[in-house]
Structure formats: structure tokens, C-alpha cells
């Protein structure tokens, strides 16, 4: 097990290096002079030259990349944000708790709703509940969540006045954004739970368990759900990772100062150090979530545990949402 974890951690290194290279390249070739964007048009050429010197923007592509990587690896320094002049690490650390809380609450709600609805749907296939739940989940997958966020604000904070429309200070503030980004995760989890439960329920050992006279609830929980859990964990992990990467648009709509909003603002402002640092950070988080998912597999399924000597993860072949 430990060997497996170490191996996975080592495998992360080339991926993360690749991520820095990809992002660095994109940002380098993004037109626009950061000096001009940050200083605005009330600055002279001398001002801009000063800025470029301050931020070491005068070397070639390779030089700049090597310098950047040197600083990241040797000193663990992700650079300084152009706009706030604060270190990128601090900037990210300041925002991450918010994103983490939001992602945690959303995924919790999504898991509860998704798994319960999925199990019920699967056990009562073709019932009214199944049809309604499947329909709603498909709508949930199809909703553009920035639009859902807008509608939530209109209905729940403007018309009904139940929840505040923006901010993230008290749990009351969490409700609307959590619902908004939790919806598609809940729908994804529900769909996956349902289909994987259906597959398991048809298996022989379930029939055996039933024929042994075990209670339906026990059969579902102890045998079926347990065996259907692998794909469910995959989807949950996938969605959680995505949410940790920042619910980009939702955070903007609800004026939540999380990673997602930080990244959008940084990309728009061509705040290269912040974009690079942020994406690298998100990539690290996602890798760790994947790792945790893999470890969870082992706990759920003894077969996988023994396989970890020669691991090959089955890829989740499902829909992947892109709008955050």
C-alpha cells in the first residue's frame, strides 16, 4: 500500500511539471503586455519599463521559464502577484479555505441527495420516483450553473428574501452557492449510483443473498451498495476535485472570494504568476483527490487492494461537466 502511494506520488511529478510548462507557454504567448494592463493607460513608457524590470519580464521564453522553475523548486516560491504585490502562495492560501468549505458543503449535500435518490431509483426501476428522479437529474446535468445561480438569487433572495445574495461569511450565506454548484454533482452522482446499482442488483450473489431470506434493506446496503460503490466513489472524487478547482462562474456571481474567482480575475488581468501558481496548486489538489479515491477503492474492494501491486485504474467513462 505504501509502495503504491509512493509510486503514485512520484508519478505526479512529471504531470505537475507538464502543467507548469503548458500554463507557462499559454501565458507567455498571450498577447498583451502585463505592464500595460496592470498600469493602465495613464502610464508612460518609462513606467512600463520600470514595471518590466521589477518583475523580470525581459528575458527570453526559455530563460523566463527556467528562472521560474528554479524559484519554484529550489525556494518553493511561486512568485509575486503583479496586482497586489503579495506572494502568490499567500494569495492562494488566503482563498483556499473558502473554496474548500464551499466544495465540502456542496459535495456533502450532493452525495446525500445523489446516493439516496440513486439507490431508490435503482431498487424501484421504472417506478414514478425513478422516472421523476432520472428526469430531474438529467436537467441537473444540463443546467448552466451560472444561470441557475442567477435564478436562485432572483427567487430565494430577491423575491423570498430567505438567503443573502452574496458573500460567504455565515453558513446562511453558503446555502445558495452550495445548491448552485451542488446540483450538477448531485445529478452526476445520482446517475452513476443508479446505473451501477442496477448492474450489481442483477448479479447472482444478490439473488443468492435474497434467496437466503435476508431483508431487502440489508441486501441493498451490505451487498449491492457496497459493490456498486467503486464507480460512485470515482464520480464523487471527480466532482470534488472539480469543485476544489474553484466553481469559477458561481463564485463570481455570488461574489465569493475563492480560488475560482481569483483565477478568472488573474487570467483576465494577465497576472501570469498568479495564474501559474493557481493552476499548479489546483493540479496538485486534483492529483491528491485522485490518490485518495484510489486509496478508498482499496478499502472498499479487497480485490483492488491486492491489485495495487500492479495498479491500473479503470477509467471512469462518464460525462464530464465543464462549466464550473
Amino acid at each position, binding site marked *: 500500500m505504501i509502495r503504491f502511494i509512493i509510486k503514485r506520488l512520484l508519478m505526479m511529478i512529471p504531470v505537475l511539471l507538464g502543467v507548469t510548462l503548458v500554463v507557462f507557454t499559454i501565458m507567455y504567448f498571450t*498577447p498583451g503586455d502585463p505592464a500595460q*494592463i496592470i498600469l493602465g*493607460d*495613464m502610464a508612460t513608457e518609462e513606467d512600463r519599463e520600470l514595471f518590466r524590470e521589477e518583475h523580470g519580464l525581459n528575458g527570453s521564453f526559455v530563460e523566463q521559464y527556467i528562472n521560474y522553475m528554479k524559484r519554484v523548486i529550489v525556494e518553493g516560491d511561486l512568485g509575486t502577484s503583479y*496586482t497586489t504585490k503579495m506572494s502568490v502562495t499567500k494569495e492562494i492560501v488566503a482563498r483556499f479555505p473558502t473554496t474548500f468549505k464551499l466544495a465540502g458543503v456542496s459535495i456533502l449535500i450532493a452525495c446525500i441527495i445523489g446516493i439516496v435518490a440513486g439507490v431508490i431509483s435503482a431498487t424501484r426501476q421504472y417506478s414514478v420516483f425513478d422516472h421523476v428522479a432520472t428526469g430531474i437529474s438529467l436537467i441537473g446535468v444540463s443546467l448552466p450553473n451560472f444561470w441557475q445561480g442567477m435564478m436562485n438569487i432572483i427567487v430565494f433572495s430577491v423575491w423570498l428574501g430567505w438567503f443573502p445574495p452574496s458573500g460567504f461569511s455565515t453558513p446562511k450565506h453558503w446555502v445558495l452557492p452550495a445548491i448552485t454548484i451542488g446540483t450538477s454533482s448531485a445529478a452526476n452522482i445520482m446517475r452513476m449510483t443508479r446505473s451501477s446499482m442496477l448492474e450489481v442488483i442483477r448479479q447472482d450473489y444478490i439473488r443468492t443473498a435474497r434467496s437466503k431470506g435476508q431483508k431487502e434493506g440489508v441486501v441493498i446496503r451490505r451487498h449491492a451498495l457496497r459493490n456498486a460503490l467503486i464507480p460512485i466513489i470515482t464520480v464523487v472524487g471527480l466532482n470534488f476535485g472539480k469543485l476544489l478547482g474553484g466553481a469559477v462562474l458561481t463564485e463570481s456571481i455570488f461574489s465569493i*472570494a475563492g480560488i475560482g474567482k*481569483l483565477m478568472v480575475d488573474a487570467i483576465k488581468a494577465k497576472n501570469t504568476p498568479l495564474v501559474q501558481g493557481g493552476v499548479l496548486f489546483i493540479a496538485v489538489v486534483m492529483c491528491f483527490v485522485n490518490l485518495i479515491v484510489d486509496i478508498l477503492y482499496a478499502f472498499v474492494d479487497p480485490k483492488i487492494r491486492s491489485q495495487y501491486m500492479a495498479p491500473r485504474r479503470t477509467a471512469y467513462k462518464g460525462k464530464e461537466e465543464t462549466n464550473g
Partner: protein
Amino acid sequence: MNKRTIAILMAAVMVLALLAGCGGSSSSSGGSEASSGSAASSASSSGAAAAERKTKDTLTVAIIEDMMSMDPQETNRASNWAIQRQIYNHLVHENPDGSVDPELATKWEWEDDLTLRMWLRDDVYFHNGVQFTAKDVYFMIEKALATSLSASTYASFDIENTEIVNDFEIVLKFKQPYAPVFNTLTSGRGSVPCKEYFDEVGPEVAAREPVGTGPYKFVSWDAGTQMVLEANENYWDTANMAKTKNVILKVVGNTSSRVVELETQSSDLVFEIATTDIDRVNAIEGAHADVSESNRYMLVTFSMKDETLSNKDLRYALSYAIDRQAIINVEYGGNALMATGMYPHNVFAFREIPDYMPYDLAKAKEYMAKAGYPDGGLKLLFNVEDREVDRRIAVMLQDMWKQIGVETEIIVAGDSAYVSQGYSYQIGLRAGNANEPSNILIIYDSAFAQKIQGCDDHIDSELARCKTLLDASERAEAYGALQEYLYDIRFTVPLLETPVVFGVSDNVEGFVSDPLQQINLNSIVVYE
């Protein structure tokens, strides 16, 4: 499902409910939240007379964006300076009429056109207990000249020859006569930082945990969310002590969310209400919109270096095709002023231009024919900044110019992204926000070759000359003539002046608006 599953679910639901409940109770017990205040206020106002109104100890302000930096010389955003001025002081304060009041400087004297001697207060202490001295003034200028965000504003200051006479006397030297000096010292970039503090903690910390001499002290800053300030009980200016003990500055980026802040009584004071929301805010019970004149104006710019637009008749045609009243009605709900000259009418040396750019389609078409485009058939690139109002005005202009046969391709991009994508400037839209002619007209200067891409020697030399004219009437005359010249060449079309709109709770007293939104929070009292 068996009972255990249900029990687990129930537990989970209850935990969530508990969380939500906690939120509710904590917000109502904390005195800072307005929700509790409103309940109390309705109870107290029914019982007691207005004279007995209880004041709250916290003022909650919704601001439009997070601070870039709390180091006054390290930012170029008016929204940041509006907050910094609560923490810092300036040397002097220049009033709109041009008179100058003392602040940290008690008096000053021009020894010659290049030498300004200033005497400073000897009873001012920074929030960290360090006394304010001439060293800090010197440090401010030195720091401003070293950073890209302020260097050009301070370009006329001659730091090498500036001399600290003693702790409370300094002689400022200039490279050339510099008329707008008091404007610079009054501006956001003129907030005086504490040298010792910067030396001690370094610029990065000093910019995040600011120390000044102002009426409020910095308490905490939750990046992107909020900043908390606390009254400075040892404020030197005892007449202007902060009246409310705590200030919470909440970042609410979305325009309509800021209106909701007032509706839900979550904020007492709200920055930048959209002009189209004025009626809505006035309809809120317990809040109103404070609308006042600003120094902000919107203008269309034509590139001076573009070949097509070098055709003066074409520029005239484009200017007469603009229905400015329609823009004001549609975009601003009627709450903006028509421009009547080349810059905001309340700025020094403004010259009103008679019959300023009327909307006249026939005349526009006539000029089109004169320009050599009787049937239109012209396509121009129109660069627009990524700001909501700018984008919307651009779409209206696009439709108006279509009426005279000019097609425009709107490209929403920041200036530099635009240029480096291989476009050259043709038409641009600009929002100006300044209260000093030299700052406003700097956009025509060839050194600032951006949207207008200035390349007019006459303008350059006049701008340089005006700055050095220390005599006010002489300066006014020179600026006046320059404005007429600018109207004639018409490389810019100032459209309208936008008002400054604050959303103010009726419980707030002592709020005074400002054309550049540089308001003071220390005079504000909040009643329950």
C-alpha cells in the same frame, strides 16, 4: 431502506440544519449585523423620540472591488484610495475651487517657482506610535518615484535636491514649475506612509497591514472578502475623530448585488450604484440613493495616427451621428448629464462650447458625402474595454453609426491585448475620472500614445506649458484655448458626464459625497 439508514440521513440533515441555524443565531447576536439592528430600530423608533436614537458601533460599507494594495503609491485605482484615505492623511487638501487647506502641513511658502517650503505638524503619530516627521514626506516622494504605478505623477518632483531642514520642515524642489502640485499631494498618491514601518516590516507587509496617521486604524483584511477598520482614538485632528467605532468594508463586486445589500439591510453605505438602479434604491424602505456631480465623463476617441480617420469630415460625420440623449436615456435612465465641452464642466478652466455636437443625422450624412463616402461602405475597428457600461454604449454607437453607413467591429479587450493581437486603434471608448486639467488632458499627450495615439506637437507643447503656469488665470486661459482647439480637431467626442451615486441607509448621518468618491467615513454616524 431500514431504520438505520434513515437515522443516518436524518442526522445528516439535522447537522446541516444546525449549521444553518447557527448562522442565523450568530448573525443576530453579533451587533455588527444589520438584521438585528433593523429589528431593534423598529422597536425603539416606535417607543422613543428621534433625539434618543441609539448609535451603532459598526458601519458596514459595500465596496466594489478588493484592494489591490493598501500602499497608496502602489495602486492606481480610485476605489483603493477611497479606502486608504480613512487610514492615511495627506499633507494638504485642495478644494474644488482651488483653495488649499492645511492637513499634515500647517503652512507652506513658494520660495521660487521650483522651491516649496513646508512646515509640518509636530503632534502627529502613526498608528504604531512612531511620530510623523519630514522623513516620511521625503520617503513618500522617493517611494512614488521608484514605482511604476506612481512615477509619472511625481515626475516633476526633484528628489535629489529636496531637503529635510528638520523634523518638521521640508523644502520640496521641482525640476520645472509644477502647477498641479497641490492636486498631486491631495490625490490618493499623496497619502503619507510611515518610513520606519516600511523599513521595519518591508513593503509587502506594509502594503497588507497599513499603518497611517488617519482617523481609522487597520484591523484585518480577509483578501477578497472584507477589511475591518477601527477608530484611531489618538487621532491628532480631534475635531474630526471617527464617530463610529468599527468599519467593515465588504467586497461586493456585482452591481445588482450591492443594491440587494441595501434591501436586505446588510450594508449601511454602498459604493457605485448603477444609474439605472437609482429609482430602485429610492424605493427601498429605509435607504436612498445619493446622487451628485462627478468628475467622470465618457468619451469616444479616434486614433490620430489612423489613415482613414485622418479625414476630418469623417470624424465630424461620426460625431454628429451620435444621439447622446438616447444613450443617456437608455443606459443611464436619464441620470447623466450631456457633455457641453471637452471635459467635465466642474473642473478648473472648463470652457463651455456653444451648440456642442448636436445630434444631426442630415448633417452627419452631409459630412459623410464630403468625406468621400456618400454611400457609406466603411468598416472601422472599435475597441472597447471589458466593462459592462462601456460594452453597452458601444453596441448603441455601433447601431447609430450604421445609420450613416459606417460599420464597426466591436472588439472587447484591454488596450494592450488589443494592440498585440495585431489590431491598430481606430475607435475607442474611454471613461475619464480626474479633477485636474493636466490629468484629464494627458490622454492627448504623445507620451501617452494609447487610444488617441496623440501626435500633435501643438497639443504636446501646450500641455507642457500649462503645467508650468503658476498663475491661475493665465493657466485657465491657456487650457480654455486648448479645449477649443481639441473641439475643432475632434479626435475625441466627450459624450456625457456620469453622476456619482452612493446607496445610503436612512440610518446613516453625516455622509458627504465626493466627485471622485473620495469620501470620509469618520464623519458618519449610524443609528439603530
